[in-house]
């Protein structure tokens, strides 16, 4: 911890104490989604203005040029201040911007980045109904016609797509050859003709994800990032853009969330129940460990000593610990926790509405590479165990 990062920490903390929306948890409980979008916009504007929204952008851009260590300080302080998460702008600020910085052209950067700073919302168009963790099998087509691509197909699980102005689209331009090689990366205007969006009603009652349908949608070749067929590599850059930082934020927030467990114990008069105490005592070190893993992972990225599988361990351990965390909350809250309570928008994973939190915890064990995918990566890339075989011949008598 250098003196500079500590100065930044003090500044950030002071700014947050003045600017964090007061009582946003109460305000966002049972809030209409439109109201939530407003609050996100306000909070985004403040952060951009103060330079806290874009510390990961390169030097020369507003707020940019911060080291990873400094970015971490900002994330930690935002978690500590229990400020709302910037869910609506995450794709724009990280995925879109980093993809443009790393793989975009100057023209694309000049065209799109100022819009992001002004509050344009982006969504990600990667997942498809039949390609969960298996991006190589994407089917949405982009057919070249003159200086345009014509898009047809369907994307799903796109966060907040119903509010998005633009979309990071991964589409298939070639069906021959290895599946990865036929993908192309495009920037699509969500207001284009032929785009329709249908929010997905989730098991929590929320609809923060949506399906996107493309019916002969035109995209100019100027909006292609990288070469045709190079989409797989560009998508990897997109996905790597926030690697580590999100989990630093989430694990820090999980640690602050422990106080909500304590509150539920008090509410349910279970603070002297030794069975519950021991469950809590078993959980706390895991929460600490998740924080430590996220922290040390970021240190490795800073010192450029990251190894294959490191990120998978952080994500897997976080997802497992989070599940235990919310399951304990649910256990303590008893029948009371089973009654439907209005949910809080834009919150972290731990809202004290434990059954809701339990449902939401699956977002981390399924999305962004499921626990099962992470285990494969750890076993194969860290422990050197054989990869899943390429061609399988079924035992006799099976189809």
């Amino acid at each position, binding site marked *: 911890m250098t003196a500079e990062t500590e100065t930044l920490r003090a500044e950030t903390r002071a700014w947050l104490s003045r600017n964090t929306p007061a009582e946003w948890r109460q305000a966002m409980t049972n809030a209409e989604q439109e109201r939530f979008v407003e609050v996100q916009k306000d909070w985004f504007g403040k952060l951009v203005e103060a330079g806290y929204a874009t510390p990961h952008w390169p030097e020369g851009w507003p707020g940019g040029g911060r080291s990873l260590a400094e970015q971490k300080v900002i994330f930690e302080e935002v978690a500590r201040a229990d400020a709302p998460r910037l869910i609506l702008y995450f794709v724009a600020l990280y995925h879109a911007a980093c993809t443009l910085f790393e793989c975009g052209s100057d023209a694309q950067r000049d065209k799109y980045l100022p819009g992001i700073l002004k509050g344009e919302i982006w969504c990600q168009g990667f*997942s498809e*109904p*039949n*390609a*969960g*963790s*298996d991006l190589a*099998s994407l089917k949405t087509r982009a057919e070249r016609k003159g200086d345009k691509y014509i898009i047809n197909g369907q994307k*799903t*699980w796109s966060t907040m797509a119903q509010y998005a102005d633009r979309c990071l689209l991964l589409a298939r331009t070639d069906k021959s050859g290895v599946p990865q090689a036929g993908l192309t990366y495009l920037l699509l205007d969500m207001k284009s003709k032929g785009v329709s969006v249908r929010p*997905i*009603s*989730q*098991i929590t*009652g929320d609809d923060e994800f949506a399906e996107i349908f493309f019916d002969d949608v035109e995209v100019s070749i100027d909006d292609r990032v990288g070469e045709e067929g190079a989409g797989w590599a560009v998508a990897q850059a997109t996905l790597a853009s926030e690697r580590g930082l999100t989990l630093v934020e989430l694990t820090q927030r999980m640690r602050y969330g422990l106080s909500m467990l304590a509150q539920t114990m008090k509410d349910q008069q279970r603070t002297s129940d030794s*069975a519950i105490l021991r469950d809590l005592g078993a959980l706390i070190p895991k929460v600490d460990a998740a924080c430590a893993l996220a922290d040390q992972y970021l240190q490795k990225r800073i010192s450029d000593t990251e190894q294959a599988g490191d990120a998978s361990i952080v994500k897997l351990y976080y997802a497992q610990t989070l599940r235990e965390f919310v399951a304990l909350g*649910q*256990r303590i809250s*008893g*029948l009371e*926790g*089973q*009654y*439907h309570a209005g949910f809080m928008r834009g919150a972290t994973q731990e809202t004290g509405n434990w*059954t*809701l939190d*339990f*449902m939401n915890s*699956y*977002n981390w*064990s*399924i*999305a962004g590479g*499921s*626990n*099962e995918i992470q*285990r494969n990566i750890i076993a194969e890339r860290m422990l050197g165990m054989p990869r*899943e075989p390429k061609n*399988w011949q079924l035992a006799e008598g099976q189809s």
Partner: protein
Amino acid sequence: MSHQTGVSDESGELLTQLRDSVRQVIEGTGLLGAEDHIWKPSVELGWLLNAVPEELDGLGLGNTGTHAIHLELGKGLSGAPYLPATLAIDALCQSTLSDKSSWLERLTGGELVTAPLADGDLTLDDSQNLDGTLTAVQSADIASHVLAWTNNAEQLLIIALDQSGLEWQERKTWDETRRFYDVNLNALPLAKQTRLAQGSQAKDIVTRLLAQRDFALAADAVGGATALLAMTVDHLQTRVQFRRPLAMFQALKHRCADMKALTAASEAMLFDALHSAAPEQKATAAKHLACTSFAKVAEESLQLHGGIGMAAEHPCHLFLKRALLNVHLGRGGDMYEQLIAEAFLTGT
């Protein structure tokens, strides 16, 4: 108090008929059949008679029948108030109420007397007034009365829902498959209620009712876990990832095998308990094992369904939410382990 401990050939046949009849209705409505579409047949097809002993002109299948019907209803995530209805009918049959037979006629004919599916808090004050709350009372809005007992189990009553001093309000649960209500009693005069039993007779009947409630919840859980596991295996067989069905991945196969073992164990334990010499002593264990196993199966199933399981339109979450709620119904999730251990230690 007598229990059906074995199954004769004749009642075996009756049981099969009964189970087939439930299956047929559930298959007709599909998952999450409208409450009405299951409640009406349960009246019309005589399922409610299951709880009535032969000497009172019922089917007299007792626990065995309960098990069979609840298990099938659980598979279909039924929302019909069959469970509280049979509790009320059983309480009535066990009572020495003078106009028992006319009550029975009304209740097996479709008038609903519901009951609390979780332990509530009801006391009798010195002026013989009832105060407190009945918790998790199912489908109270379509019921005429609610079955109730005081905390000390010395008063067992049927209480009309439309009287002053009584209010009920819906308590929406995450589980959307059933509808629950709180019933609040405020200085309700005991004298105006229908008393089924009091003192030690009431205590005996309440003990029996708690066990029946546990068995019914256990059967519901076993049915739910069975249907959900089948759905999950089916999903894995169908869903292709990395160019092969998910069911080919050994790690997923092993998790399904563990789920199968959990479900089979719960069902075996429940069956064994129902046919044991003293079923009541095993009710808490059967309920706890079945409901916690169902919750584990449901937790795993959602993960194995992946993204689609997170969509409200897929029924996966309906099982999960019902499973989680079932854990907390009855005596209350955390109470069971304690009750089971204490009963065991008292016995050793």
